[in-house]
């Protein structure tokens, strides 16, 4: 213990903190410590986020004017394919599970590590290998099929590096599966004494639901992509319409994965937001059990709604009706979650910290994203809107406004735990507000564009759409600047930030009972859980006193 220059009592990083337990490159690259793997993931997804973001910026710059003057059609097609592929598989899907999930899940359930630490390391290597394949495809000249790889464009007509990219995604799928298996096994078998299912933090539940989807959806994508590889590499005509192949079948197996994949992105975000809101509002999560069941229901029904991507694809009206119906049904658990987050604020003692701003932003943006989902679940409206900018805006509200906001919120929330240092709260709050503003500025006009009929994936467009495109592109510049801001103040915090205490947020979870940053083996003694996850009880303590019961204490 020593008094640092701020005059506060702060602990030097533990001798055996996971950060100091070895400083060689080898000790990082061959570490099986879930916390180090989380850091490896964090570094690599950041790289991919900025690659994908650069592509997005180029796309929006091109769309400032109706003519295709900044890029050629081919370059534009390669840019949006790159943006989609990178953002979906190399950023969004591994983002929260790979970083926060890996770091926090074992801590939250009171385990020393995930169930299969070496598999966990392998998952990162698979991710990196896959990333290299995909980047190779990019450097050699790109891929122009869109992230959906629809046949027969991808198999017979595209003259680009489809094989490399498809193989890259095939490999990254295994990384996802490995993470999923690890998390499910960890939650089932490594919960510490007293950590019953109904005492699991919602983030752990979110990881459980996400992992289910990862494990059960990804292999079908793997098969779809492998068939594309087989068709391109060996010429086996599997989807070839000339021998009776049905392009709609590819869409079925593609969306069997790719719709649940949306839930791989949003369920972890829901978990993060639940943690942040409960802690920052100093309030027990409203309807904890409903929150749990809602996530599980989303994970299961999420598998039965993929056909709403195919209302105009030549699917039978009967199937469209069923898929439409189930898509409306899945809106219910999502709505339950939104209401419960709102309800959690009731009678709280709310701190407007940066993570809380991200979380509240998430609630608004996710709600709008979800509501616009109802438009796309209604067949007649979807026929008009599908493949227009309305769809683009809708899924960006879910994936950027939802998943990315939550990722940033979670990153800030657990930053003191992960790095052992505090960041500048004012900078962080400004960045959160800036991003919220920039996001809406970018994507709200796209709803209007979509209703007016502007198709997506157009690098040229009729001039009457220009007003809204200029708005959206201007917003994108604001957003791009916003995403650079955390790099600076978080980078500064990493090197010069004030030391954080063990539990700077006065939170209840097991992860906060360890030192910051946590020791290599997480807990010196296996912790024993004696109470529910969100025992914040503001009313029986005078302000200023501890108003939370850690999970290790009896309620």
């Amino acid at each position: 213990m020593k008094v640092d220059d701020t005059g506060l009592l702060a602990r030097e990083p533990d001798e055996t903190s996971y950060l100091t337990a070895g400083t060689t490159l080898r000790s990082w690259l061959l570490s099986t410590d879930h916390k180090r793997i989380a850091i490896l993931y964090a570094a690599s997804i950041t790289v991919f986020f900025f690659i994908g973001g650069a592509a997005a910026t180029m796309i929006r710059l091109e769309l400032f004017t109706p003519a295709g003057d900044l890029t050629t059609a081919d370059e534009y097609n390669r840019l949006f394919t790159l943006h989609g592929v990178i953002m979906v598989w190399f950023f969004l899907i591994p983002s929260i599970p790979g970083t926060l999930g890996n770091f926090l899940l074992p801590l939250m359930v009171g385990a020393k590590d995930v169930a299969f630490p070496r598999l966990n390391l392998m998952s990162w290597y698979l991710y990196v290998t896959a990333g290299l394949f995909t980047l190779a495809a990019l450097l050699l000249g790109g891929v122009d099929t869109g992230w959906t790889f629809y046949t027969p464009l991808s198999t017979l007509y595209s003259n680009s590096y489809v094989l490399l990219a498809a193989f890259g995604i095939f490999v990254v799928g295994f990384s996802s599966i490995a993470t999923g298996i690890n998390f499910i096994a960890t939650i089932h078998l490594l919960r510490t004494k007293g950590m019953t299912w109904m005492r699991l933090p919602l983030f752990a539940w979110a990881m459980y639901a996400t992992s289910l989807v990862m494990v059960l959806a990804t292999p079908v994508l793997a098969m779809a992509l492998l068939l594309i590889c087989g068709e391109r590499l060996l010429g086996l005509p599997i989807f070839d319409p000339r021998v009776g192949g049905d392009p709609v079948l590819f869409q079925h197996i593609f969306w069997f994965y790719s719709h649940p994949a949306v839930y791989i992105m949003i369920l972890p975000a829901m978990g993060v937001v639940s943690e942040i809101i409960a802690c920052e509002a100093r309030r027990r999560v409203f309807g904890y059990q409903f929150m749990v069941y809602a996530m599980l229901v989303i994970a299961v029904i999420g598998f039965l709604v993929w056909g709403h991507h195919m209302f105009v694809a030549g699917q039978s009206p009967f199937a469209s009706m069923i898929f439409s119906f189930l898509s409306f049904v899945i809106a219910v658990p999502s709505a339950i979650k939104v209401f419960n987050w709102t309800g959690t604020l009731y009678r709280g003692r709310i701190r407007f910290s940066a993570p809380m701003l991200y979380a509240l932003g998430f609630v608004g943006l996710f709600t709008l994203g979800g509501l616009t989902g109802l438009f796309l679940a209604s067949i007649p409206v979807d026929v008009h809107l599908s493949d227009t900018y309305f769809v683009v805006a809708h899924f960006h509200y879910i994936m950027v406004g939802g998943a990315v906001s939550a990722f940033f919120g979670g990153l800030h929330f657990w930053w003191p735990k992960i790095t052992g240092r505090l960041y500048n709260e004012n900078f962080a709050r400004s960045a959160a507000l800036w991003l919220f503003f920039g996001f809406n500025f970018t994507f709200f006009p796209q709803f209007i564009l979509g209703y007016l009929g502007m198709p997506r994936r157009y690098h040229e467009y009729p001039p009457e759409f220009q007003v809204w495109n200029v708005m959206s592109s201007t917003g994108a510049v604001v957003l791009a600047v916003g995403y650079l801001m955390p790099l600076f103040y978080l980078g500064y915090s990493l090197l010069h930030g004030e030391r954080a205490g063990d539990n700077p947020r006065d939170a209840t979870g097991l992860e906060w009972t360890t030192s910051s940053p946590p020791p290599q083996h997480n807990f010196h003694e296996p912790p024993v859980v004696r109470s529910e996850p969100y025992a914040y009880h503001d009313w029986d303590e005078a302000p200023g006193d501890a108003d939370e019961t850690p999970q290790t204490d009896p309620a």
Partner: protein
Amino acid sequence: MSSTPILVEPFEEPERQREAMVFGLWLFLATEILFFGGFFFLYAVARMQDPVGFAKGAARANLLLGTVNTVLLMTSSATLTVAERAAQAGWMRGARGAILATLALGTAFLAVKGFEYREDLSEHLFPTSPAFPFSGLVGATRFWSFYWFVTIVHAIHLTIGLGCVARLLRLDLPRRWMVAEVTTLYWHFVDIIWLLLWPLLYLVGP
């Protein structure tokens, strides 16, 4: 009795570790079911579209070699089961012998498959071959696409399985028989897939 099993981080008791390994492997097998399931789905649709063409194509598949392979794989599953149970019971001579037998049978499967491929190719039974006997025939062409695709994917699975089984020989089996147990599970799964492929590729009648 067998000696104390080796514990791997983060486990503290052997029973828990074994449960986790078996559970983890079954989770993986669930993904494999869905992986091959995607294939079987496409196969089912294609076959329903043109059952006659499928049968025409399948008539040229080498039933003898396919059946020999089925028996080889079935037998290898039995020998690997012996190996696993012997390891668990501490009967190391038996375990080693059975593992070697499994390796021999698995390799024989791949060798037979190789012969079969050579024969298929010499008969131009590859959809892109210029002399493909069924060119223009929808069902038969798709049958042969599926045949090549799935047998190659299965052979890759089997090769990985051979690697895993071979690794058992280098392990301290009396203390790590759990590894043998999960390896066996994977091997049996690859066997079941073949048991399903055999009628779908070789016994296709009109």
